């Protein structure tokens, strides 16, 4: 089959502040891959980057696009780049040809070199060869090539005038092969565990590449229709199946979509959790698909808006981290500084949907990428020594992913080149004001609170964790599995069903209760540990001042022996980025109790360093966050240097550390209570501790912090419950419910929902120098009777203070 010429690339050629900054970033980057370029002599005029055989051909196709782009667009500055433009152009052509020859459609003897990715070395790419066993992998791996095809297609499109006949024919074969294979196939269903949002998304993108570049091909219409069907099925909820909405071209949505990939709360699961990278897939692949439309001069394809704002606005904006990435509310199994894909989603929101918040988040991402890159000698984005960062011990290192960042920046550039600067970014304060508050994701299994200068979350499914982040969010605190709840390792390892034993990874909880209003939430659950050996009751309450309270109880159902229990687990980010000293200075100052602050340096390499401390009433990390503790068994800090799998430099702080423990049936560990104070230092914590009281007895766990009562019940019925404090204060705070005060013993009784938890604000004060009984009604009326008085009287406003 002979090739068809592509449509011309049409662009208004906008130059915006974004295109200028990105072009400089790419010029600074290019010397890194250029130093890792090799000739390939199996066919003439060929070469490859890195070790030549990454998954799905992405290494070569990303680099083909980056080099094609730098060869043809922008004001190239050879001094800044340290690589001649002609050399970049030459590498682009050679790489494109290497990809063509080693693709399934190329000559049989042309296979990829024996590089580092052992499962891909010496094979062709294109989807025919599938290295993982099993039928699910066949579709997963074959279709995933769509991502790579889109890079390849864009590179070939940009370079078309410079390609010889042979290369053009091969490029046409590569691009159209994918579209022919998948355009009329059925997209897939999947929401739990392994959503097919990602698969449907990349397949749509791969098919659309051919349709957009070769619109004159007789099959182009079939490809276009198939691509739109696949991509819209990447973001479909059950309710969409009843929808009567029409797309911009009048086509009924329901006539296209037919597979469900998103929960009704607009979350979805991949790698077993609600994972921001994969929830982003239906958006970012759609955005990338639409770039082809923009480059060909067409408007957006019909359906571009399908559930965009539902996903972006309900999850990505409220879960935005400080640098514009998404906070992984159910932990992150990749690395933390992973914002390159979501930046394209922000750009698309800005340019396609005029979203000023998208513009702000795009700016934050670009600011951060620019800052980190400027600190690296070879122009890499994520780390200085990327070869030393092992992502997967058998075949992936961080160097493999550096071109990911560059290629996504290229896409952001091309978007702005086509569509201009777009709407101005909102002010950060406006963003926080609009996005703040509580959001519950009942299907995803998390509830979050975005505070003005903090972020807190509680997850009860997939990977139950709880955490509180300060203002710079993921740059200080990370979200490892078992955050707050802790890893509980049994001596016998529960090998009969380890993966479901909730030891080092909690997969499920029971008895979940979530109470929330617009501004705060209170959540509780029971975690089964060791296949029924232990029940851990947990509750997590957010407070109006952005602090949070965590209650933990542990009771043995059977006799059991624990090897360790990292209760009160907090992940600590401890990076060094020379241009981000406020977030990543390369060390943390840890203060435990009244000890002097200790410097904890963050670096990769060497053994982990473990520091153990006696139980302390308060702990602080720099001035980023501090903690008040009750019932802690000791504090441990793990300076983490040994990374079999790198995910950024992540230390661990254990606020309630247990080594070996033997528990008899019915025994309990002492109640542990942790108050997280985001953006507060040790001095604040010390002062706050003076006004912190934990109930000594009663039917409910509770504490008084300053003038607020915080409680947690693990009782399954609605009851009137009581808590008793030893309170020696001049003024005794009064809370809704009834109370009595006798000789410094303060008993509060309140009606509590089943397994209810939450807080009550003080409605007035009684005189601490006298015994009294009081009743506070829901409307705030306070009735009080001091010792010696017969009748209750209504406390007047003046008397309350």
């Amino acid at each position: 089959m002979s090739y068809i010429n592509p449509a011309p690339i049409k662009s208004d050629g906008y130059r915006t502040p974004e295109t200028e900054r990105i072009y400089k970033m790419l010029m600074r980057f290019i010397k890194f891959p250029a130093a890792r370029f090799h000739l390939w002599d199996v066919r003439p005029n060929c070469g490859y980057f890195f070790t030549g055989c990454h998954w799905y051909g992405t290494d070569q196709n990303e680099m083909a696009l980056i080099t094609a782009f730098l060869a043809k667009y922008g004001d190239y500055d050879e001094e800044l780049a340290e690589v001649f433009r002609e050399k970049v152009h030459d590498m682009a052509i050679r790489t494109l040809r290497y990809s063509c020859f080693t693709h399934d459609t190329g000559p049989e003897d042309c296979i990829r070199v024996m590089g580092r990715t052992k499962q891909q070395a010496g094979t062709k790419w294109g989807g025919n060869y599938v290295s993982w066993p099993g039928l699910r992998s066949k579709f997963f791996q074959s279709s995933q090539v769509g991502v790579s095809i889109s890079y390849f297609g864009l590179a070939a499109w940009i370079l078309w005038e410079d390609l010889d006949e042979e290369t053009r024919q091969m490029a046409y074969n590569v691009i159209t092969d994918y579209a022919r294979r998948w355009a009329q196939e059925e997209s897939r269903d999947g929401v739990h565990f392994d959503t097919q949002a990602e698969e449907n998304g990349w397949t749509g993108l791969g098919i659309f590449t051919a349709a957009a570049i070769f619109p004159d091909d007789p099959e182009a219409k079939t490809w276009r229709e198939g691509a739109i069907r696949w991509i819209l099925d990447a973001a479909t909820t059950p309710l969409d199946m009843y929808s009567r909405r029409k797309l911009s071209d009048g086509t009924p949505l329901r006539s296209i979509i037919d597979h469900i990939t998103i929960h009704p709360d607009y979350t979805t699961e991949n790698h077993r959790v609600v994972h921001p990278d994969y929830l982003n897939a239906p958006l970012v692949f759609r955005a990338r698909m639409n770039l082809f439309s923009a480059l060909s001069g067409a408007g957006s394809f019909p359906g571009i808006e399908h559930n965009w704002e539902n996903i972006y606005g309900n999850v990505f904006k409220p879960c935005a981290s400080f640098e514009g990435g998404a906070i992984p509310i159910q932990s992150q199994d990749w690395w933390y500084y992973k914002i390159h894909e979501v930046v394209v989603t922000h750009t698309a929101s800005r340019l396609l949907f005029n979203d000023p918040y998208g513009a702000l988040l795009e700016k934050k991402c670009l600011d951060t990428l620019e800052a980190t890159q400027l600190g690296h000698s070879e122009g890499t984005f994520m780390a200085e020594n990327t070869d030393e960062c092992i992502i997967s011990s058998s075949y992936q290192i961080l160097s493999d992913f550096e071109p990911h960042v560059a290629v996504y920046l290229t896409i952001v550039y091309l978007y702005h080149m086509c569509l201009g600067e777009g709407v101005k970014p909102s002010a950060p304060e406006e963003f926080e004001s609009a996005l703040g508050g509580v959001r519950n994701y009942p299907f995803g299994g998390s509830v979050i609170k975005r505070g003005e200068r903090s972020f807190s979350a509680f997850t009860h499914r997939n990977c139950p964790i709880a955490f509180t982040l300060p203002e710079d969010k993921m740059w200080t605190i990370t979200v490892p599995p078992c955050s707050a709840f802790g890893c509980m390792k049994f001596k016998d390892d529960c090998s009969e069903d380890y993966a479901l034993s909730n030891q080092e990874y909690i997969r499920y909880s029971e008895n979940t209760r979530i109470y929330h209003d617009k501004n705060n939430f209170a959540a509780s659950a029971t975690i089964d540990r060791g296949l029924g050996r232990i029940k851990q009751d947990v509750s997590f309450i957010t407070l109006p001042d952005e602090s949070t309270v965590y209650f933990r109880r542990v009771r043995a159902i059977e006799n059991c022996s624990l090897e360790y229990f990292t209760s009160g687990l907090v992940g600590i980010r401890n990076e060094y980025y020379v241009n981000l000293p406020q977030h990543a200075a390369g060390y943390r100052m840890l203060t435990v109790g009244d000890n002097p602050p200790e410097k904890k340096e963050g670096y990769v390499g060497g053994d982990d360093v473990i520091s153990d401390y006696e139980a302390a009433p308060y702990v602080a990390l720099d001035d980023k966050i501090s903690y008040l503790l009750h019932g802690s068994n000791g504090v441990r800090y793990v300076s983490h240097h040994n990374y079999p799998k790198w995910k950024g430099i992540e230390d661990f702080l254990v606020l309630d550390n247990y080594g070996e423990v033997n528990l008899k049936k019915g025994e309990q560990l002492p109640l542990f209570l942790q108050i997280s104070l985001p953006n507060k230092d040790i001095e604040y914590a010390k002062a706050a501790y003076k006004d912190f009281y934990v109930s000594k007895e009663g039917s409910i766990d509770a504490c008084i912090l300053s003038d607020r009562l915080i409680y947690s019940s693990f009782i399954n019925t609605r009851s009137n419950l009581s808590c008793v404090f030893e309170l020696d204060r001049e003024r005794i705070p009064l809370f809704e419910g009834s109370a009595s005060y006798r000789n410094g013993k303060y008993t509060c009784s309140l009606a509590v929902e089943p397994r209810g938890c939450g807080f009550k604000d003080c409605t007035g004060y009684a005189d601490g120098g006298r015994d009294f009984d009081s009743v506070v009604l829901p409307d705030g009326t306070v009735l009080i009777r001091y010792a010696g008085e017969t009748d209750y009287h209504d406390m007047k406003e003046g008397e309350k203070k």
Partner: protein
Amino acid sequence: MSYINPVPIMRRGHDTPEMSRIYAMMLKFIKFPCKYFQLWNVRPNCGYFFTGSHWYGADQNQMAFITAFMSKYGDFDEELAGITREEIRDMCIKTIRYSCFTHDTGPEDCVRVMGRNKLQSGTKWGGNYVPWPGPRNKFFQSSQVGGSITSLGFAVWIMWEDLDEETRQMAYNAITDYAERWVNY
């Protein structure tokens, strides 16, 4: 492709109250479908129940299974059934053959009769023909034949000793066609 003989059916010979009740119910039921049995003269010794073209061939294959079962198992009571056992056996073989001929693996000209189900009338069954549009329905309708294949398979297995060479080969083709199509899907 020549056929392979099936393994023998291992009958455990239990006799439970449930079996007796069910067999009595089947005997009372069988006169109902038998009223609706018709001959099909496109190929020798064929026939079909009802209007001959239900979804996925389910009508014929269910009846093939039921009649095969009643021909070979249980204490048949002709008085209660209102029909002779030999008549049932004959209908069974005719129905299996109708199913075989009209399956995707049968001769091209053998399609099902123009019955009440307009979307299936005049077509073959087996999964190749899919009247509903869209890729989702392709899998839904093609794979759903599995329900019917299992009925045909049971009927053929029970009747194997009574089937001629032609019918055995066709039955083998129909049953294995489904397995080969989906096992590596």
